[in-house]
C-alpha cells in the first residue's frame, strides 16, 4: 500500500528496542555481591552501556542505510524485518540469545502496535516517531558525531512527512495495521496499566480528548437553502469526550504533547511478556507470511546490501561475552525458548543451500561496491565470512 511506511516502522521499532535494551542494561548493572545469583550474566558498567547504545544508534542511522530506507518501497515481510533487527541488536559488543531476541522483538512490535492504534489521528504517528527520535537524541547527546546523524534523520523525516495529507497518513497507518494484524501478545506492563486486556487486545477508551481537528460528538446542525442554521439538536454520544488538546510540534524541537512513543520502561518496571494463551491467536498472523517466499533470495540481497556496508563487531568469546538477557534468570530464559509456540518463531528466512554459490558471488560483488567507496572497514575476507556465516545460519 503506502510506499512511505518503512522509515516510520523502522525508526519507531528501533526506538522501542533502545528503550528496552537501555532498561535491561541498567537493570543488569548489579552490585558484585548480588551478581552471584545470576552469575553467568555479568553486570554492565556505565561505559559499556553507553558504548552499546552508541554502537546501535550509529548503525541505525548509518547514512547509506537510511538512504535505502527512505526510498519509496513496499513494507518488508515480517521475517525480513525481524532479520534486520536481529542484525541491529548485534551491532555492538552485546549478545542476545534466541529467547531474549524473540522477547525483545515481541515487546517492540506490540508497543508500536499499541501506539499506532491509540494515535487519535493518523498524522500523530509522526509525533510518536518524533518522541522516539527525541529520546534517541538524548541517548547520544554527548557524542557529536552520532548526534549529527540523528539530526540529519529529523530533517529527512520532516522533509518526507510533514506535507503529507491526512488521507495519505491514514494509508500509512492502514499499511502498518496490516503488518501488525492478528498480533495479540500480552505484555506485562500493558496488562498492569490496564491498557491491554487479558485476551491480548488493547483497550480503546471512549473518553478523553478528541483528536486535533475533531469536534466532540453530539451536535446536529441543520441549514436552510440560504445557508442559515435553522436548528440544532443534541444527542448522547455514548462516551465521555473532551475537547482536543493543542497540536504537538512537528519541528526538530518542540513539545509533542502526546505521551505515545515516550519511554514507558524504567528500572523498577521490568519488561515481561506472557507467552501462554497466545498460540491460537498467533496461528493466523503467521499464515500471511508462511508461504515459501520466492523472493527470499532477493530480499536477502537487499538486506545484505543494507547491512553489508556496516561495521560488524566480532562477537566476543562466547563464555565471557557481553550477554544481555530479557529474563531475570538463565532458567527462565531457557524455559521461554522451549515453551515458545512454534508459530511465533518467525525469524528465519529459508534459503536453499544449493543456491548459495550464485548468491555468494552476488554478495561478494555487493560487498565490493561498498569497500570501493572508501569506507573504513575490516578486510574484505572478514566481511565475506560474516555475511556468508549469516546466510549459513539461516
Amino acid at each position, binding site marked *: 500500500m503506502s510506499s512511505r511506511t518503512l522509515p516510520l516502522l523502522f525508526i519507531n521499532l528501533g526506538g522501542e528496542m533502545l528503550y528496552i535494551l537501555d532498561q535491561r542494561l541498567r537493570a543488569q548493572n548489579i552490585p558484585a555481591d548480588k551478581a552471584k545469583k545470576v552469575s553467568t550474566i555479568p553486570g554492565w558498567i556505565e561505559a559499556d552501556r553507553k558504548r552499546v547504545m552508541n554502537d546501535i544508534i550509529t548503525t541505525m542511522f548509518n547514512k547509506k542505510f537510511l538512504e535505502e530506507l527512505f526510498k519509496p518501497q513496499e513494507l518488508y515481510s515480517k521475517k525480513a524485518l525481524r532479520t534486520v533487527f536481529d542484525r541491529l541488536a548485534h551491532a555492538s559488543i552485546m549478545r542476545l540469545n534466541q529467547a531474549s531476541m524473540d522477547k525483545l522483538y515481541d515487546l517492540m512490535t506490540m508497543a508500536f502496535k499499541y501506539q499506532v492504534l491509540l494515535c487519535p489521528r493518523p498524522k500523530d504517528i509522526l509525533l510518536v516517531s518524533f518522541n522516539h527520535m527525541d529520546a534517541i537524541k538524548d541517548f547520544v547527546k554527548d557524542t557529536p558525531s552520532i548526534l549529527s546523524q540523528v539530526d540529519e534523520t529529523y530533517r529527512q523525516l520532516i522533509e518526507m512527512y510533514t506535507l503529507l495529507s491526512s488521507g495519505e497518513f491514514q494509508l500509512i497507518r492502514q499499511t502498518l495495521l496490516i503488518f501488525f494484524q492478528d498480533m495479540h501478545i500480552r505484555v506485562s506492563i500493558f496488562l498492569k496499566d490496564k491498557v491491554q486486556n487479558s485476551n491480548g*487486545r488493547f483497550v480503546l477508551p471512549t473518553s478523553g480528548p478528541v483528536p486535533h481537528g475533531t469536534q466532540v460528538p453530539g*451536535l446536529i446542525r441543520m*441549514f436552510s437553502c440560504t445557508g442559515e442554521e435553522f436548528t440544532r439538536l443534541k444527542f448522547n454520544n455514548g462516551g465521555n469526550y473532551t475537547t482536543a488538546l493543542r497540536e504537538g510540534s512537528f519541528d526538530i524541537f518542540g513539545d509533542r504533547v502526546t505521551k505515545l512513543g515516550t519511554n514507558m520502561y524504567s528500572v523498577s518496571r521490568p519488561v515481561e511478556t506472557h507467552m501462554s494463551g497466545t498460540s491460537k491467536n498467533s496461528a*493466523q498472523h503467521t499464515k*500471511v507470511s508462511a508461504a515459501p517466499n520466492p523472493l527470499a533470495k532477493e530480499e536477502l540481497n537487499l538486506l545484505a546490501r543494507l547491512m553489508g556496508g556496516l561495521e560488524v563487531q566480532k562477537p566476543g568469546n562466547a563464555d565471557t561475552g557481553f550477554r544481555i538477557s530479557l529474563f531475570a534468570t538463565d532458567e527462565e530464559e531457557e524455559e521461554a525458548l522451549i515453551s515458545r509456540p512454534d508459530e511465533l518463531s518467525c525469524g528465519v528466512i529459508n534459503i536453499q543451500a544449493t543456491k548459495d554459490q550464485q548468491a555468494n558471488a552476488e554478495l561478494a560483488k555487493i560487498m565490493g561496491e561498498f569497500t570501493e567507496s572508501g569506507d573504513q572497514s575490516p578486510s574484505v575476507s572478514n566481511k565475506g565470512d560474516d555475511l556468508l556465516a549469516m546466510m549459513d545460519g539461516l
Partner: protein
Amino acid sequence: MYHKEKSIQIKNSASALYNNLSVLRIAPRRLTHFTVVHANMVNMVSASWDGLNYTHRQLQSKEPNVATSTSLIMQAAFCVLPSRDLLVVTSQKGIQMYESDGSIMVYWHALDTPETPTAQAVFARGIAAVYENYICVGVSSGAILVFDVPSKGSNITLSEVLEEHKESITDMASECSGSQECIANLVTADDGGNLCVWKSGEEFQLLNKIPGFDMSCSSVKLWKGTAVAGYGTGQIRLYEAVTGILHAEINAHARWIYSVDIAPFSGLLLSAAEDSLVRVWHMTITPETNSVEVAHLHNECVTDTQICGARFCDGDGYAFAVTGYDLSEIIRYIQS
C-alpha cells in the same frame, strides 16, 4: 432499538480499510452473502436466513506475475445491476470482477504499476454500480474508470476514464432510492474530501464539484439527491448533490469515520468509526421542498474495536452488520 444477534465467524480478521464490509441479499434463495477483506484475500460467507447454513469461500488477489510482492486488496463490493450482480475486488494490481457467488472471475483489468515503487502509491479503491449497466472504479491517481457491463458474459469493456479528482479516490456511490427522476446518479469522493457529482450515460457528465476542506472523505452515499459523506474528522455532512448546498452537519464521531450506509426504503443512516461506535440516524428528505432533516436514534459500542465496515442487511434497515480491525467475526444487530 436494536439488539445484538449471533455473530458470523469468518476465516480471517478484517483489515483496517474503509468500507470493509459488503452485503448482498438474495431473496429468492433466502440467503445473504457477506464479504470482508483481509490483507490479500476476500473472505466471503453466505448465510442462510434460517441461520443454519454458513458456507465460506476465499478469493485471493490476482498475481499476474509471481515475482512481484504481495498484492493487497483495498476493497471488495457487490455491484447490483438490473440484469446481473457482480462482486468487484480492487487491489494494488488491478480490478477483478467475479460472479456474485465468487465462483468465477469474469474480468480482470490491470493497473499501470511502475517498475520501481513511486512515492505515490498505486491502487484501485471505490466501487459503484451505476444506472444502467456501468460499474465505476476509482484509482489512486484520482481517475475513475467506467466499465460497460453486458447483461451476460465476460465482454466487459472500459468505456471511459473520468479525470476530475486530483487526489486518491476513497469511495463512491450511486443513487440508491430507486427513483429514475434523480438528475444525479453517482457521487465520487477523494482523499481531500472533494465530492464530484455525475450523471451516467455513454459519456458521464459532471454536474457539480463540492470542495472538501483538506479532510479526507472516507465513505459516501447518495439518496434522494442528497450526498451523505463521512469524514476523517468524524463529521457527517449532508449536501444537496446537484447544487452543493449543505443541509446538515453532524459532529458524529470522535475518530475517523470508516463507513456510512443508508437503508433506502426507510431513510435510516448508519455510521461507524475508529472510535468503536456505530450510530443509527434517521433522515427525512423531501426533494420537492428541498428540506432535509436528521435525527439521532441509536448507538452501539463494539468494545475495544476500531470499526472498519458497517452495512444494513436489508432495504428497510431491519438488521445491520459490523466488522472491526483484528476481529474475525461479523457482528449482527436486529431491530427489537
